[in-house]
């Protein structure tokens, strides 16, 4: 037979053991949840970060390539206009000086200007056309609207990366709290039902609760 006071002590010890056991189980489950949150957020952050970098690279290429194509088209038009200006200058000079040869050359240049303009327009029209591969054609034919849309998406990926990174940090902090809770639980198991043991157990419970809160925050 056990005396009442000893029985009470045993009941307290039993309660202590039960709380200790439940806490260990909770720590195990929280560790799994936080590990999932950490991997999920970490992967999302990495992907968004790299996607943002990819889009930045693509934007840079599109701007550079499409500008070259546009500049080239404008340069070709300038070449044709220069010929036109030369033709007019020759014709005017020939007219003023009564130089038939200069006028004839000017007229020939004038005709050449029209043919050249048509030829260069046709040349520019083949930019990004078949049989160029789809990727290069996309770079050459990029419009300002497309670039703006891509830029918006790039910014969105940067924001996503930042948000996911914050979630990952919360998960890592939660895992750190959980590790602390585990250590305190171990300490409580060593100190048993003494004052120090109870304090350790209480602190471990608080740490585990904090980790649970961080796990929730990591998913929101």
């Amino acid at each position, binding site marked *: 037979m056990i005396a009442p006071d000893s029985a009470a002590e045993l009941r307290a010890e039993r309660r202590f053991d039960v709380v200790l056991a*439940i806490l260990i189980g909770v720590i195990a489950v929280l560790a799994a949840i936080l590990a999932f949150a950490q991997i999920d957020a970490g992967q999302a952050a990495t992907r968004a970060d790299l996607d943002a970098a*990819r889009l930045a*690279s693509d934007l840079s290429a599109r701007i550079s390539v499409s500008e070259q194509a546009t500049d080239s088209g404008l340069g070709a038009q300038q070449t044709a206009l220069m010929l036109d200006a030369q033709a007019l200058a020759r014709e005017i000079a020939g007219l003023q000086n009564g130089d038939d040869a200069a006028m004839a050359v000017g007229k020939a*240049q004038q005709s050449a200007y029209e043919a050249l303009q048509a030829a260069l327009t046709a040349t520019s029209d083949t930019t990004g056309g078949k*049989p160029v591969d789809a990727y290069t054609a996309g770079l050459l034919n990029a419009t300002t609207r497309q670039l703006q849309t891509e830029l918006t998406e790039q910014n969105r990926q940067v924001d996503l990366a930042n948000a996911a990174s914050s979630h990952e940090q919360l998960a890592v902090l939660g895992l750190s709290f959980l590790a602390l809770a585990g250590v305190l639980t171990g300490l409580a198991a060593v100190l048993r039902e003494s004052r120090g043991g109870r304090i350790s157990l209480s602190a471990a419970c608080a740490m585990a609760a904090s980790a649970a809160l961080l796990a929730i925050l990591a998913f929101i």
Partner: protein
Amino acid sequence: MTAEIIEGTVSESRALAVSEITMVPHERGHGGVAILLTVAAIVAAAIGFRAAMVSGSASDSWQSALRTEVKRSAAAMEDVRYLYQSELPVAIQIVEARILQAQLLDAAQGVSGATKQTLLLEASVQAQMITALSPSSDLAAKTDYALPSGGLDLGKRLADLRAQHPELLALDPDGLQASGDKLAHKAEVMTLALLPASVAAFLGVLAQAFKRRRILFLWLGALALAGGVAMALAVEVLA
């Protein structure tokens, strides 16, 4: 005297309690708890390790996609730069000279004397320019790229330039990114398998604490652990 009696009773009671506790035979299922917790820990460690490896592979694929994107865009930019900045200006000069030469020769047909001589002289200047520039311009020299209007087919020329390095043309960062996405999904689902394993551990410690329901907790724990293992294996094989 009374105090001594009470103290004696307390000592006896404690001794009796301790003896009751220590004399309890080996508890039923105690070994099961230890086995369940150990196996749950090993399974959780294995799943975590595998998930981390798969997640690392996903990250590698994404990194590779970025590098490939940079490589692909650099290759395309170089081909475009070569065509539009190196080849095209010279080719345009040749096209201009050809058209001008043709117009000057046409104009020389209907005139005579000094005007004809001037037109022919101007045409010969253009001819010399064509002769001088043509060897340095495949774009203007090859008839494959000539358009009926006298212009040049830049699309065809760029396609030929790009085809000189088929390995660069075959770069596929989107494919690598998709591969990374698939691996990341696999890692995530595999990490979910940690949950049943942790629940098994939870049930294991409950089995230790609640002796009356120990066998039930142990069975449930074993079930949860088996579920976790099955889930992890299914993800490994199918995903």
